[in-house]
């Protein structure tokens, strides 16, 4: 594929344009941003950034359509637009500047640009009064570029550039209000925990290159597919690669034990939470696993690990969400929990369903976050649910869209989450992974409960805040409400799309898409969701005193949940205890001062000592020197004449 081909066939050039438009936005805003923002009210920078992303979205729809027109190869429609040159070309190591456009990446592109575009629109309203909004929009555009590079990259190296880039943008955006210490700390935490996962990813890339000789996504998948029919002499290597990849995914997608950064990441602006920590960046881990699905299928051990880590994360996060009082933290833990579901699905072999859940989750989670942002905006910055209440009459649009989002995540029929989550549980049941099935079912109960709790505490009952806040209550501007409405409408629609079938060729899924469900299945699942909602309704709306009584009755459990199972304590202890103290006592004092400095000083002292000892020869007496010369001559002659030959 050369540059000429790019121009002739639009499907080949459009992906590059989709990718580079947000980058262009970033560059322009960096260079000219302050000029565009002429006075306090104008939002030229934001409008430019939003427009570029929306154009990218339009073009990605065209690409999507264009993909349908491509001749399928083995049932798979794909193109690999190639810029015509290599990034690295050393011996056998070649990284081409090429993208991979297939159903999986096209779908992800639509999500990133579509939901991302809506969030840009929302940000126009949310950040309208912020002094630094130019910087904000430049970061948002940069993030969009990197996320697109991640999903469109044709090889693991380009994907890794995108991976690292979104990590960087996450740091920049979480710590956007960097003057606040908790925000900059949260940014650091996110980046550092991500980095721990990235070690796994880098090692996996190296191992993959060594085993398969290529980092190209398409070739890796083909190699894996071919390996399936041969006795796998290198099964250990494949498991190692998959586990290391999953480690990277855990870091980026906040799975236990690397989940600790996501709740803290709520320090960033709410649209950032919606985009990065709900709809797109955190799903990069799932994308990675799905992209290399055939590789994972070769390793039972890795699949087991993925499924169980996902399942346990889902449960742990859901349980912590039960006791959170900050509206955004509930949603953060909810995101972690739903990501756990996605990995559970991948781990049991239903990769397509996992990506389907990514797809639906993007919509309803973005909706929930943006809705919470609207609530926070209405309350002028208040995020604690304990001083909210009764808002459904004051901010009705926000309320009704939030209801749609809550219903979607709880799994109410016909809404988005119902279809994807149901499929996951059905797969667990039918593939006879019963412990995981019960785990998932119980977590679904918890999910319905805590989300309803959030809904009821925020919007029902009477307002628990103070007079001044009540006076300022107001609905958000249309720039913020319009995306909410669009996303709510989408929640009704996207669940019914045949995403799994669409993705099957890309994921090389074997043909067993239609699963027969037992007669009781749907009833049970719906019943669980309703039970959760009803329970929350009873505790938080009808009998309002019941919540505090239950709380005091379950004290010890509450303490465990509120301390988030002690993860942060352990990490902090390790970091400050082992790393910091250890560095100081051992590495600094023992190794650096005592050993290395002593060695270097010792050399100096040695030279000094030797010099002191030998300078006695410099007597200044000529005759002594002459004697030494004579002595030397005698010695030399003696050696020449009398040494044994």
């Amino acid at each position, binding site marked *: 594929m050369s540059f000429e081909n790019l121009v002739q066939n639009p499907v080949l050039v459009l992906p590059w344009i989709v990718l580079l438009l947000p980058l262009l936005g970033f560059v322009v805003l960096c260079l000219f941003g302050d000029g565009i923002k002429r006075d306090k009210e104008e939002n030229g920078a934001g409008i430019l950034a939003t427009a570029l992303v929306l154009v990218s979205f339009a073009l990605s729809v065209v690409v999507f359509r264009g993909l349908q027109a491509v001749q399928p190869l083995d049932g798979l429609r794909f193109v690999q637009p190639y810029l015509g040159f290599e990034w690295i070309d050393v011996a056998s190591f070649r990284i081409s500047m090429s993208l991979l456009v297939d159903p999986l990446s096209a779908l992800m592109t639509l999500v990133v640009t579509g939901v991302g575009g809506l969030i840009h629109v929302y940000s126009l309203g949310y950040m309208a009064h912020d002094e630094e909004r130019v910087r904000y929009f430049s970061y948002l555009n940069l993030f969009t570029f990197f996320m697109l590079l991640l999903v469109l990259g044709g090889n693991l190296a380009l994907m890794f550039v995108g991976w690292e880039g979104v990590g960087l943008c996450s740091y920049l955006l979480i710590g956007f209000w960097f003057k606040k210490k908790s925000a900059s700390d949260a940014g650091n935490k996110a980046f550092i925990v991500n980095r721990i996962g990235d070690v796994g990813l880098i090692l996996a890339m190296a191992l993959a290159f060594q085993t398969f000789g290529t980092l190209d996504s398409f070739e890796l998948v083909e190699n894996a597919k071919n390996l399936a029919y041969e006795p796998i002499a290198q099964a250990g290597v494949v498991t190692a690669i998959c586990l290391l990849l999953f480690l990277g995914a855990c870091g980026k997608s906040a799975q236990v034990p690397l989940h600790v950064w996501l709740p803290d990441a709520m320090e960033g602006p709410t649209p950032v939470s919606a985009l990065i920590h709900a709809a797109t960046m955190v799903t990069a881990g799932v994308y990675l696993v799905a992209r290399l699905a055939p590789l994972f299928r070769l390793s039972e051990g890795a699949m087991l690990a993925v499924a169980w880590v996902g399942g346990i994360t889902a449960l742990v996060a859901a349980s912590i969400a039960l006791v959170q009082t900050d509206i955004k933290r509930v949603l953060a833990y909810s995101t972690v929990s739903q990501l756990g579901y996605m990995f559970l699905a991948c781990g049991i072999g239903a990769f397509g369903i996992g990506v389907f859940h990514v797809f639906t989750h993007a919509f309803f989670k973005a909706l929930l976050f943006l809705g919470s942002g609207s609530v926070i905006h209405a309350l002028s910055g208040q995020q604690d649910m304990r001083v909210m209440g009764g808002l459904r009459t004051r901010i009705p649009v926000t309320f009704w869209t939030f209801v749609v989002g809550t219903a979607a995540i709880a799994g109410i029929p016909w809404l988005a989450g119902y279809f994807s989550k149901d499929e996951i549980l059905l797969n667990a049941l039918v593939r006879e992974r019963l412990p995981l099935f019960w785990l998932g079912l119980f977590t679904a109960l918890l999910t319905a409960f805590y989300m309803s709790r959030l809904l009821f505490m925020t919007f029902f009952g009477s307002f628990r805040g103070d007079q001044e806040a009540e006076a300022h209550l107001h609905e958000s501007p249309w720039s913020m409400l319009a995306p909410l409405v669009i996303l709510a409408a989408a929640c009704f629609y996207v669940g019914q799309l045949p995403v799994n079938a669409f993705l099957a060729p890309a994921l090389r899924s074997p043909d067993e898409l239609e699963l027969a469900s037992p007669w009781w299945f749907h009833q049970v699942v719906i019943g669980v969701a309703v039970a959760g909602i009803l329970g929350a309704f009873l505790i938080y709306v009808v009998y309002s005193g019941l919540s505090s009584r239950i709380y005091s009755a379950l004290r010890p459990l509450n303490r465990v949940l509120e301390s988030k199972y002690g993860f942060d304590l352990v990490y902090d202890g390790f970091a400050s205890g082992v790393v910091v103290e250890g560095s100081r006592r051992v590495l600094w004092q023992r190794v650096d001062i005592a050993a290395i400095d002593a060695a270097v000083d010792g050399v100096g002292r040695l030279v000094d000592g030797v010099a002191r000892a030998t300078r006695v020869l410099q007597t200044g007496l000529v005759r002594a020197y002459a004697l030494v010369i004579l002595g030397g001559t*005698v010695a030399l*002659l003696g050696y020449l004449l009398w040494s044994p030959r």
Partner: protein
Amino acid sequence: MAALEQLLRLVLSEAFLFYVFSGLAVASALGVVLQSNPVHSAFSLIVTFCSLSAIYGLLGAPFIAVLQIIVYAGAIMVLFLFVLMLLNVKREAPRAGRALAAAALLLGLLFAVQVGTTLSGPGLTPAAGYDASTQAFARQLFSPRFVYVFEATSILILAALVGAVVVAKKEP
């Protein structure tokens, strides 16, 4: 009569004269080293040079023999004596420390043995037709082989002259 002739023949033979003069040379050399008055050492050195000159003559090098007297005994030693008188050098203080003396003697002996070992070997018999007259000497000296070196020594002497004047000059 025959015994006297025998004696004379012996006394005037090359070898005998050689041993006599070499003994004289060694004795006066020891005198140079062992005498405490520098002027006495200088005189001893003159005696050494003269005996060496005689030995050169015995070895069939007349030109060198004469040169030895003219240059060494006649010029260099005169210079030495001149400086000694100028600086009014007195009797010297007692010699160097025991340790130094012992070390010097030991090393000197060892050195002598080594040099001697080096130089001893199958002796070369003197070649016949050995012409060492002044004319032959001059013919060799001014041959293309040595004439440049010869001219260079004149520059050397000039440099020495200038250097000596400069070094010994009194600062104004």
